[in-house]
């Protein structure tokens, strides 16, 4: 590897009661690169991301950030490290409006008072960049938004901040054609600006279009983590559906990284 990974996980295990969801998973993300995390439904992608974000406590395993071993006990810890995540279950507050949601937990103030005008302005600018055209007002409650609009708000919320790692869990699932293109472009732009970006997606075209590396999860195990340029479409699909593809993937032993 040219450069040490900014985020690195080793030997992560995670169970919910009797069900073990992640088995000894290793994962890394490098600055300036887009790492695609792929896997079948229920493979454990979202669970892995939630472990990174501190939503779930890991049962065992090591968490390295910029080479240092860290303990992440909650979302605040992750945010302090500079990890920003768009979760699959968007986690917006339905009773707040778009601006309020976008700045939640990191409100801009002047003195004690919230700087509403400033926040509204910034929110409008960010959303414009994501080509949302049908939102009537930024002061609309998010409960009244369409599926794609909600997703756009969640994405906009994550990219507002100066972070080092951005993780997007199926960000384009509900987006239209134009919006999807915008988001993919944004992903590439973030990576080019030196951030480490992790993109979860079921769409192989998108994955191949923007990613530098691909990590494939199979039934809670890391089947392979490889350079995008070194694999083909069908190899990745095979990794996703059966956990192995020729040389690559889970052998008799456990997951192998390139």
């Amino acid at each position, binding site marked *: 590897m040219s450069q040490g990974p900014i985020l690195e996980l080793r030997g992560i295990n995670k169970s919910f009661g009797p069900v073990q969801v992640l088995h000894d998973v290793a994962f890394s993300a490098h600055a300036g690169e887009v790492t695609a995390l792929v896997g079948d439904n229920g493979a454990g992608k979202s669970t892995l991301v939630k472990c990174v*974000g501190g*939503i779930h406590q890991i049962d065992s395993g090591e968490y390295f950030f910029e080479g240092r071993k860290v303990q992440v006990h*909650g*979302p*605040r810890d992750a*945010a302090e490290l500079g990890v920003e*995540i768009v*979760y699959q279950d968007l*986690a*917006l*507050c*339905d*009773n*707040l409006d778009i601006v*309020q949601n976008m700045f*939640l*937990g*990191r*409100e801009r*103030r002047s003195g*004690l*008072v*919230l700087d509403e*005008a*400033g926040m*509204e*302005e910034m929110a*409008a600018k960010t*959303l*414009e960049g994501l080509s*949302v*055209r*049908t*939102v*009537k*007002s*930024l002061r609309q409650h998010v409960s009244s938004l369409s599926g794609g609009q909600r997703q756009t708000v969640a994405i906009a919320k994550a990219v507002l901040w100066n972070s080092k790692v951005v993780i997007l869990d199926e960000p384009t699932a509900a987006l239209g054609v134009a919006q999807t293109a915008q988001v993919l472009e944004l992903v590439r732009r973030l990576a080019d600006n030196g951030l480490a970006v992790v993109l979860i997606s079921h769409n192989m075209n998108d994955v191949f279009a923007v990613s530098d590396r691909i990590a494939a999860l199979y039934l809670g195990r890391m089947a392979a983590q490889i350079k995008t340029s070194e694999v083909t479409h069908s190899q990745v699909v095979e990794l996703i559906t059966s956990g192995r593809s020729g040389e690559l993937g889970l052998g008799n032993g456990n997951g192998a990284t390139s």
Partner: protein
Amino acid sequence: MTTETLPEQRASDSRAGVHLRNYFERVRGGELGALPAVFGLVVLCVIFSVLRPAFLSAINFANLFTQGAAVTVIAMGLVFVLLLGEIDLSAGFASGVCAAVLAVLLTLEGWPWYLAVLAAMLTGVLIGLALGSLVAKLGIPSFVVTLAAFLAFQGVVLLLVKNGTNISIQDGTILAIANNNVPPLLGWAGAIVGVAAYAVIQITQARRRTGRGLVADPMSVIGFRVAALAAVAGVAVYVLNLERSSNAAIVSLKGVPIVVPLIVLLLIIWTFVLRRTAYGRHIYAVGGNAEAARRAGINVDRIRISAFVICSFMASVGGIIAASRANSVDPNTGGSNVLLFAVGAAVIGGTSLFGGRGRALDAVLGGAVVAVIENGMGLMGYSAGVKFAVTGSVLLLAASVDALSRKRAATGGRR
């Protein structure tokens, strides 16, 4: 019109006509705000004035405020807990405990009034800290924690006031809170300053927004709002400044009761906290979706604890008002229906028990409904049983006016 894209729309629409049309559309669309509660209140007042003309007298108007003050203040604190989707059953007796602390220190220990008040408020804060920590840190449902506290505090009040006696309060300052009035001139001054401040804030805000190219309320609408506030405040101060003593020769009774500016002040403070500070925003967020708030890095436990602290603190203020009004504290202070009426006031005002929706103003509006009902029923002269039954029905009536007007306005999709 509706197909405008975001950038186009931003600076347009600033004419009053459009604004008003939008307002009515919004009202028809179910965003009623305070309207139904106000409407229910008006219906009640009309009914009572028709049945008992005395209801409309100046003295009764003044009575209304002092009668409803304690419940309103407690309800205002409860709004914070309700906003989180929690409940505090102990708020009533917490106010009793604080009142008892006040009375014991004041009358039995002879402390000066300010120290005693401070101690009572501190008691409230400590109670809130304890309740909040149990709920947030141990994860016991707030209903159970505060039910336990409800019982325990009942006992604590009894112990503090020594089993069933009562402690009189002689201190003039404390007695003044619920029994004296602001001098008429000061009342006028206060009203004028308040309205002027409101106007200034509204105008600067609108200026700042238009300066940034954001949609702002047009001046005509702001003018209308300021005028409405001025009218309400003016009429209230005028009526309250009328002589209302039945033998004015001996004692003159006029001026705004001291509790009125007190409640207005608390209303402004808590409205400011809820609407203009990050802390208030976080309260709504935790109430709307605690998990989303947690993921946004908000310290949910701390928000929970702080809401209970505010609630119990307001209960202590309510207790002090109640003690002042009763000139004494006894084991029933904060008991009987105080808690249910306070929660009821918040809910009638529009606060949701499921969290995420509510305002400090709700407590005042709902408190007014409860106070008007109690006040009006007091004029009717029913026997005990009939009075209970009628009070219940009237409460239901006020609530249905509210519910029906909301229902009429609501569109099919949402409830």
